[in-house]
């Protein structure tokens, strides 16, 4: 494995240089906190951030995205024939993405890139993107990523992992994509492999010590879907929920979307928007019948999807990376860690 040292004095210049070959995204602060945004000219990623309010998923899966378009003008030969909307898929890089957000991209990829169908918007964006991760030296109190198969220095889904060493970054190059990005910045100063890896291991261990909460997921697999679905605790869990959907929007692994048509003059555009399973309309039939009419059913759907359906379907762990955003931003303090532990320890009365 190759390691590169980046002097922080060189950082800004290098990042600015890489904009010639990449569309850059990174943490930027606004009045509501840090967000992963496109870095326009003269904007640099604010690497001192702790975590972003929203995850990085919008870089690949925008909150609203044009997918198809056509003309309704019947004098045109191709009227009412839908074609793919044009989107720029030139190389992009997310600088400073947190390891749990990169892990979440792999989870989203399972949904959008399947043997049977490939979502071309996701797949093209995923292929175009290089992920430059930033290890988390001091994880916050809501971070439980080590018990969800990732962690503050996890490398899954990343092309480069950076460690912040005060006056410099130490970059672990994980893929060719990552190497290309670093060379586009002019960062080529290699560091000793062994020493660097030792340093990474120390940082990882120190960081993991800061993680104070965890979840148990070991027994979820053995219970049946129906056992957990019929468990008696769902009304209690859902009691305070106001179905605002915040948990689903801030979640880096929530992928559900809606498709809507919009027409301006004679141009019709098919758009996909993030959707939320917390909304009654999400499942409401045209007839008025709604299979998830009650709040409890919707809250249960969210947790069952993340912690049981996904686990059973893919056998690749749970659909949660432990970033803690839903815990932090829930207006009524519903905590996925408590729900998960309740589900994991639930025993059916025989």
């Amino acid at each position, binding site marked *: 494995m190759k390691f590169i040292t980046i002097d922080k004095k060189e950082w800004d210049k290098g990042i600015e240089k890489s904009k010639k070959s990449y569309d850059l995204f990174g943490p930027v602060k606004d009045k509501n906190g840090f967000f992963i945004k496109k870095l326009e000219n003269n904007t640099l990623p604010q690497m001192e951030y702790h975590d972003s309010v929203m995850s990085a998923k919008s870089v690949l899966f925008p909150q609203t995205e044009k997918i198809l378009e056509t003309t309704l003008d019947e004098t045109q030969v191709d*009227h009412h024939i839908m074609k793919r909307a044009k989107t720029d898929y030139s190389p992009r890089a997310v600088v400073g993405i947190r390891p749990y957000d990169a892990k979440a991209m792999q989870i989203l990829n399972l949904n959008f890139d399947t043997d049977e169908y490939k979502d071309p918007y996701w797949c093209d964006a995923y292929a175009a993107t290089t992920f430059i991760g930033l290890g988390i030296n001091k994880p916050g109190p809501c971070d439980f990523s080590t018990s969800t198969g990732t962690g503050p220095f996890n490398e899954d889904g990343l092309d480069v992992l950076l460690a912040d060493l005060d006056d410099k970054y130490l970059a672990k190059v994980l893929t060719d994509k990552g190497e290309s990005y670093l060379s586009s910045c002019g960062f080529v100063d290699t560091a000793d492999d062994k020493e660097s890896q030792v340093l990474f291991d120390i940082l990882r261990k120190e960081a993991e010590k800061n993680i104070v909460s965890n979840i148990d997921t070991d027994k979820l697999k053995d219970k049946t879907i129906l056992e957990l679905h019929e468990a008696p605790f769902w009304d209690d869990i859902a009691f305070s929920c106001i179905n605002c959907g915040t948990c689903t929007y801030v979640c880096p692994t929530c992928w559900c979307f809606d498709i809507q*048509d919009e027409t301006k003059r004679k141009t019709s555009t*098919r758009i996909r928007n993030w959707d939320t399973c917390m909304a009654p309309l999400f499942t409401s039939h045209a007839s008025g019948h709604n299979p998830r009419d009650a709040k409890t059913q919707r809250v249960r759907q969210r947790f069952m999807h993340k912690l049981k359906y996904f686990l059973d379907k893919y056998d690749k762990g749970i659909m949660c990376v432990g970033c803690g955003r839903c815990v932090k931003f829930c207006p009524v303090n519903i905590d996925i860690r408590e729900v998960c532990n309740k589900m994991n320890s639930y025993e059916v009365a025989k």
Partner: protein
Amino acid sequence: MKNPYIPYPVRIDDIEIATEDKSLKTFKFVFLNKEDEQKFSYQAGQFAEISIPGVGEIPIGIASSPVEKGFIKFTVFRTGVVTSHLHNMKVGDILGVRGPLGNWYPWDKLENKNVVIIGGGFAFTTLRSSIIYMLDPANRDKFKNIDVVYGARSPGMLLYREELFEWEKRDDINMHITVDGTDDKTWKYHTGFVPTIVEENAPKADEDTYAIICGPPIMIKFTQPSLVKLGYKEHQIIMSLENRMKCGIGMCGRCNIGKELVCKDGPVFTLEQLNMTPKEY
């Protein structure tokens, strides 16, 4: 990479009012590009997204049969934004069709079996597709006895009436047509609800008999006990579900029942499979 969101362009070739209250119409579409018809190769029981630019998409069961060539047919109940718009469209208009989507009735498993088809109201579209498929001279020998129980509120609410009465006259299919009630003195078929007609007329189950049910939830609910009385086991009862859908390809996340997605893992499930999932349909 094939873009699964792009519909095949089709032209409305014919529109037929399907029921006396005019709430259902049957649309016949032809593909604008001949080669798209090949790509849209489907099985009885599958559905498609009818895609109207500027309005939206709706998942609808395919009412034409794989053995019918040169067109596809959908019978649509006017109920929401897209279906209302479709009902107001005219012959010659251009729209899109995306599919075929979902699984189908298990035709491999049904070979050399007796098949009992049970339908109610306007949930008879993919069942029509199935009957036409099974009665096709190339396929009829693959199946043993075929029974059909189909009911609607009144004679005028039965879909595909002419075909039903044609099938009635044949000796290779046993039709049990029923209506909830009628004051038509010349009505020569059954009167009564589907569950009762099933109990009185459908064949008793043996290992080689399978039932396919499609209908409103209330009919399904009351037909199940009738089938149990006749000896049908959970794996011999095949059902087709519907749920709100958007993508139709298993990605948008709303149509799930437990870990199964109705759009991709379904819409066809056996009662045995459904009994292992939450009943969120």
